[in-house]
């Protein structure tokens, strides 16, 4: 880790454009922030009907007792995998191309986890009763495993976002960014001394190892709220890995959408290059194939078993009322990304954006296809139900997306979206390190032929 002399010398600072949104915020920031806050406040005004009249104002009914709120909960938590998990894996594997990506990925995790984690509270007819988990929670319930796992992941992700930000916060402090007290407070006395660098390196290493199993466990545990029941379409042993793969898949797509959007807004073309999108789009392509494999296995097993209650859910999705959503999901998650990302000619930045958008929509449809059809066709002999979300649910969905955008807007106003010290470290140290590493990978020199060795002796 290095803090280059270029930072303080007062001479030309090579990464000045990364600090520009913080040091010279444009008027666009205020406009966008105001608009987003208005959208969020508007949604809460609409939601107040639910506070007054209860869940009757939503489309939830018997037997479909979970709808948009839980769909969005699983969807947002899935997207949160983009960040910390991808960032930790890339750091751990010493992938040098990670440097301009990790910060954005980590921000997605923290912002989206906060949004997603709040959704189950919206799903309560009496939201204040969420507080009952403090006194009368049942820890053997998978719902409470979610609470513990998401809180742990949120804490680990926040620490993992904050620690590598310290040198950049100190840089902003030294460059007079305002409010000064905030940067002084958050920099924790960073001066870039060798001892401080060592401490920070060690802390980042511990957190990146800790965060990977925590991230995997979070989405596994979320799958358990479905898989631990005996509902048709949910009771599956592969739901844990299926959810983890889906989460990574949607996470990479969301990350690329964010990267492409911010690259355009803040003119980050010099940092976020085609090569970064190429690597990430290959990961997205592999995830798409893996997702298809899991989906195929899941539905083939159900079809082959031919159990009546399972088949009701199966046909509800394949040919019934949810067929447009199911086949839309297959098109968005498999056909569109595979066709676009397999060919170099279409793997352009606009092409990647379209593929990523398709995946994000497709993964949302997947969550919808998991949650609603199983509840609409219960194992018990009740008539099939139907679910149409109400304005309140759509409004809160809009508020969730607006909150994500607001989170990014506020972050970009106060902190660099790309890790400056990591970029500088890359410039100064990564080329010799990479050469050294490559030399280690190559076979050792062949031993000298025996005759030469004998002559030498």
């Amino acid at each position, binding site marked *: 880790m290095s803090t280059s002399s270029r930072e303080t010398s007062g001479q030309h600072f090579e990464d000045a454009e990364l600090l520009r949104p913080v040091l010279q915020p444009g008027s666009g920031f205020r406009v966008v922030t105001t608009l987003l806050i208005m959208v969020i406040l508007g949604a809460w005004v609409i939601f107040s009907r639910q506070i007054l009249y209860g869940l009757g104002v939503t489309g939830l009914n018997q037997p479909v007792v979970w709808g948009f709120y839980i769909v969005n909960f699983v969807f947002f938590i899935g997207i949160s995998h983009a960040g910390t998990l991808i960032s930790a894996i890339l750091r751990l594997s010493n992938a040098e191309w990670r440097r301009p990506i990790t910060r954005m990925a980590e921000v997605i995790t923290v912002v989206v986890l906060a949004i997603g984690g709040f959704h189950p509270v919206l799903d309560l007819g009496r939201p204040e009763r969420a507080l009952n988990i403090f006194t009368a929670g049942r820890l*053997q319930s998978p719902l409470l495993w979610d609470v513990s796992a998401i809180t*742990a992941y949120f804490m680990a992700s926040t620490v993992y976002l904050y620690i590598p930000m310290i040198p950049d916060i100190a840089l902003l402090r030294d460059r007079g960014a305002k409010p000064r007290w905030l940067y002084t*407070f958050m920099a*924790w006395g960073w001066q870039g001394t060798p001892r401080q660098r060592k401490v*920070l390196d060690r802390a980042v290493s511990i957190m990146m190892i800790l965060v990977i199993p925590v991230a995997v466990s979070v989405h596994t545990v979320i799958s358990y709220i479905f898989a631990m029941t005996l509902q048709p379409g949910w009771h599956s042993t592969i739901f844990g890995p299926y959810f983890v793969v889906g989460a990574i898949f949607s996470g990479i797509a969301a990350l690329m959408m964010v990267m492409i959007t911010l690259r355009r807004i803040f003119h980050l073309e010099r940092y976020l290059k085609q090569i970064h999108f190429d690597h990430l789009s290959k990961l997205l392509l592999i995830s798409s194939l893996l997702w298809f494999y899991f989906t195929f296995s899941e539905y083939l097993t159900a079809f082959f078993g031919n159990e009546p209650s399972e088949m009701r859910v199966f046909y509800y999705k394949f040919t019934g009322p949810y067929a447009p959503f199911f086949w839309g999901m297959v098109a968005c998650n498999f056909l569109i990304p595979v066709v676009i990302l397999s060919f170099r000619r279409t793997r352009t930045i606009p092409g990647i954006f379209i593929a990523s958008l398709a995946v994000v929509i497709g993964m949302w449809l997947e969550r919808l296809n998991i949650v609603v059809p199983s509840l609409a066709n219960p194992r018990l002999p009740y008539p099939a139900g139907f679910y149409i979300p109400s304005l309140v649910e759509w409004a809160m969905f809009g508020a969730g997306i607006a909150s994500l955008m607001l989170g990014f807007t506020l972050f970009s106003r106060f902190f660099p979206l790309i890790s400056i010290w990591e970029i500088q470290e890359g410039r100064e140290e990564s080329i010799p390190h990479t050469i050294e590493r490559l030399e280690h990978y190559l076979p050792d020199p062949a031993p000298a032929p025996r005759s030469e060795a004998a002559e030498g002796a």
Partner: protein
Amino acid sequence: MSKEPELAWVSVLQLLSVVWMWVFVLGISGWIIHLIRLSIRLNDMPTASVGISIVAIPVFLIGAGVLTYVYVGLQRGRRDDVDAESSS
């Protein structure tokens, strides 16, 4: 990097943030332990509760521990820098 003295109240705020982190982590750990006691009292699958807590509590403790390590390390590292300057 700047060598300007920091505001005293900011240093206090920094220390408080670490203390707050520990209050949060110990609060969550206490809550989980309370739920285990509840499950034992109600004979409501206490083994599952213990299993979950064995995974959850260490994650919180490690997170808070790492943050404290960084805070202490950065303060000591800064002092080293000041000591080196004053001796030279």
